[in-house]
């Protein structure tokens, strides 16, 4: 499979087949909390996609150059300090703390920047940014990328990391916008009192997850189909 094909597969897989929300259960808090109106949900989805992309880029850079076992930067420092070049330095224990730190700061930076220079954009999109800092979808994307960087056989490049990140973000957006539409509809429905709000929203999420199970195995299917096409 060529590179473009593998990127598309990573993307589709993250967006539909293994949807972040409906398959991996990450980003549930905003999925339930900010899904009351379609417009807000869409704004949230865009913001998450954007932030995942930024976080993925930064964490890829940090992981690739500093944190992964045998990363070049600490290795270089190590040899400068006179260490044995044969020894691989492994700072991966710092990964989590660095990711969360990087995510938080970059989000805050972007938020301040947008707020200062693009007030209208801030109104429609920037307001979501702080909420995203503590959203597990972002950290989860970083962790997936870390896993794929830790395996020297895979050793993802930045483009693959971004395909995953954007796919995950788009999948999140699809899920939350569908959810918001449904919840706007349920506002008008005669839902039994105890289930109003989160209860029925979770049931809807469950049925959505059932529906998305229809994509099971589609990555394999598309891969086979396209490889036969290329032949």
């Amino acid at each position, binding site marked *: 499979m060529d590179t473009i094909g593998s990127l598309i597969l990573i993307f589709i897989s993250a967006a539909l087949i293994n949807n972040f929300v409906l398959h991996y259960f990450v980003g549930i808090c905003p999925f339930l909390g900010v899904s009351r109106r379609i417009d807000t949900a869409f704004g949230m989805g865009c913001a998450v996609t954007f932030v995942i992309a930024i976080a993925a880029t930064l964490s890829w850079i940090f992981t690739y150059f500093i944190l992964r*076992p045998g990363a070049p930067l600490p290795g270089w420092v190590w040899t400068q300090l006179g260490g044995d070049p044969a020894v691989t330095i492994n700072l991966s224990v710092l990964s989590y703390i660095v990711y969360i730190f990087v995510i938080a700061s970059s989000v805050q930076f972007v938020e301040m920047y947008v707020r200062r220079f693009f007030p209208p954009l801030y109104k429609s999109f920037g307001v979501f940014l702080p909420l995203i800092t503590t959203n597990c979808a972002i950290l989860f994307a970083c962790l997936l990328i870390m896993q794929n960087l830790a395996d020297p056989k895979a050793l993802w490049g930045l483009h693959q990391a971004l395909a995953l990140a954007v796919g995950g973000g788009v999948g999140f957006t699809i899920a939350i916008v569908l959810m918001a539409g449904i919840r706007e509809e349920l506002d008008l429905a005669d839902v039994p009192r105890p289930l109003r709000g989160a209860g029925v929203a979770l049931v809807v999420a469950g049925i959505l997850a059932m529906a998305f199970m229809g994509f099971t195995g589609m990555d394999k299917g598309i891969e086979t189909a396209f490889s036969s096409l290329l032949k």
Partner: protein
Amino acid sequence: MKPTRTDFIRQAWLVIMLALLYGAALAGVQLGLTGRIDENRKNETYSVIPTLVPGALQSATLPLDFTSPDGQDWRAYQAFDEAGSHRGWVIASSGQGFAGRIDLLVGLTADRQTITGIYILEQVETPGLGDYITRDYFRERFAGKPVEPPLAIVKREPRADNEVQALSGATVSSESVAQQVNRAVLAIRGYEVPPTPDPGQFPTLPAPAPVQSDSRSGDDV
């Protein structure tokens, strides 16, 4: 009420101190536990080898990496017994099942003519259906099968030597397992055997590997 630069430095000292402290603490944890974690990771595969190759010793295992003619990378293990004689092979294989990737190990006799068993390392097949590929009764259907002709999945009692009965209702997963076994067997059979190493070196395993597939095991510091 614009914040100033000095404000920031004055306020941030706690954060910086904590960062240093936490960094040091984590490094300590890392140092203390890495050995164990690596051991765990390795054992995941190594502990299975004696079950796939009867008589083999867990510690007497030699990992080998090679590339088959079709460009695929493979990892195989040469399993030896206490006496240091070569008892069999174990090859790692993986591929798409019904719902996702299936990773498995295939055991072969030393002459690479008979399958001694399979073991599923990772799978995400449907619970209660496809995930029965991990059950012993299904794995046992592979033990003792010849490597030639390739295995075929059938939905009834096997009639030929190379036939394996599918899990009922999970043909796709069964088929996937069989295909991976076939591919792994094909690869290892085409592999030119390196000279049998000197048995004396086993206790110092893991052997120096050209490429370490295990991710975080490089830190010897």
